[in-house]
């Protein structure tokens, strides 16, 4: 028993090394979320009850966004992979008897889930303890919570396959940072990270719903707060599966192309 306790102690100590970092991250996210809640409160008062989402749904959306930031932010893609592509360490990866696509996919998804798990608990805890109008609400019912979890994983899958496409595109250029900035800047907006998608005008929303971006964080967060209702939910899940398959396929095709033309310079 003692040795397990020691293991625990060791891991705990390692984790505590980063306590300052996690405290600052938590503070940042809380302030960020609260400021957004305040801004939307002013907007809600200004629009006088004609908002496309009700206020408590928006608050919940904001807190979920903050808590699960690590799952969906495309700008914090794995820097190691980018530097591997530019500095040539990709050679080691190519030597391994595994598919690069699957390896990078699982690595990215693993890192995201781990980080999100670590971060979401304190943020959610604080969000549930906020004073009344800014408090996060529990899910509307059990079914919607289960659907939330399901769509959350699908949305994560779509986000990661998108990141994979960005990684693969980096094989075709010597300057990955530029590409990355253009693509992630666009996705940040289109996936509803800056303003929730219901605030988009109808005609743009229609176009957006033809793209994969509307099926990232938009779907699970709105199911949780009860903003999406049953008929729409199943439609969204179907679309999510469609995009997950399509984008995975696209990523693999890009990888096959990239694999053919990888040239390693120097050593």
């Amino acid at each position, binding site marked *: 028993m003692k040795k397990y306790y020691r293991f625990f102690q060791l891991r705990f100590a390692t984790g505590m090394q980063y306590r*300052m*970092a996690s405290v*600052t*991250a938590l*503070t*940042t996210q809380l*302030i*960020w979320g609260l*400021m*957004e809640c*305040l*801004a939307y409160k*002013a*907007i809600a*008062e*200004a*629009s*006088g009850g*004609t*908002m*496309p989402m009700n206020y408590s749904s928006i608050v919940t959306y904001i807190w979920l966004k903050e808590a699960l930031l690590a799952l969906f932010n495309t700008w914090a893609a794995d820097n190691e992979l980018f530097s591997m592509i530019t500095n040539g360490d990709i050679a080691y990866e190519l030597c391994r008897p595994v598919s690069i696509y699957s390896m990078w996919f699982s690595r990215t998804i693993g890192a995201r889930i781990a980080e999100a798990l670590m971060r979401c608990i304190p943020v959610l805890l604080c969000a549930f303890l906020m004073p009344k109008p800014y408090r996060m609400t529990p899910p509307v019912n059990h079914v919607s919570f289960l659907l939330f979890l399901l769509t959350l994983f699908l949305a994560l899958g779509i986000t990661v396959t998108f990141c994979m496409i960005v990684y693969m595109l980096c094989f075709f*250029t*010597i*300057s990955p*940072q*530029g*590409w*990355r*900035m*253009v693509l*992630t*800047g*666009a996705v*940040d*907006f289109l996936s509803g990270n*800056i*303003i929730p998608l219901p*605030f*988009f*005008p109808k005609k743009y929303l229609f176009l957006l719903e033809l793209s994969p971006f509307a099926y990232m964080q938009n779907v699970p967060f709105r199911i949780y707060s009860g903003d999406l209702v049953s008929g729409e939910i199943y439609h969204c899940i179907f679309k999510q599966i469609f995009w997950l398959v399509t984008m995975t396929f696209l990523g693999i095709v890009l990888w096959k192309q990239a694999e053919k033309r990888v040239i390693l310079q120097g050593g």
Partner: protein
Amino acid sequence: MKIKETIKLYVKYASVCTQSVMQYKLSFLLMIIGRFIMAFSELIAIQFLFSGFSQIKDYTYGDVLLCFSIIQMSFTFAELFGNGFKAFSGTVKKGEFDRMMLRPCSLLLQVMGTRFEIGRTGPLLTALITLALGIRHSQITWSILTVWTLAAMIIGGTFLFIGLFMLGASFCFFSIEDTSLINVLTYGAKTHGKYPIDIYGKGILRFCTYVIPYTLIQYYPLQFLLGKTRSWYLAFCPLGMIVFLLVCYFIWQFGVKHYQSCGS
């Protein structure tokens, strides 16, 4: 004489940095476009939000655009000139700061000069578009004093953000841990400063006056700029930023004195 030399050296630093970036033209272009898109999408977001209502706590669409453009512009200029402070923890960790201290030349100049990054100017285009839109949509009565107010808000804002970056850099002298808390004050102000501060309520307004004086470059001069008040002296609030910058500079100096090398 010394000032002239310093400026000459700074220009030299900046041109060397720019030349090195220009070696990768496509990358540079994409960087600019990427940053432009990020800032531009926020502008579109404001427009989308404003399709549901016409006024937010007495501020019109044009007023919010003005606020947004002023903050974006200040932040962009501050990032352009003060990028060295932003990336300072890396400079300390790599031991580059030790090398700087050995050179017979101002530290401030070296820190600011070596990280001049022309690629940061992307949001400037968005800010200019927004400024034009904002001026067209809001009713400002133009006079020398209002022109001064607008210019002072932008320049004062630049000072404010440079000061904050400097403050963040000064923390690196005392702790080698990541001091990302300063990001709330910089990026947070950039993101949330697009609305006049009083829409967030009294508490935030107080914090932004007495703790970090954001209101001196945003809320108070804005009241005068938009003609909501006749108190002309509010136009000179941004001058307070000189004091703020000096305070930040003294903290930085204090930090430099207590610096212990950690590089190898």
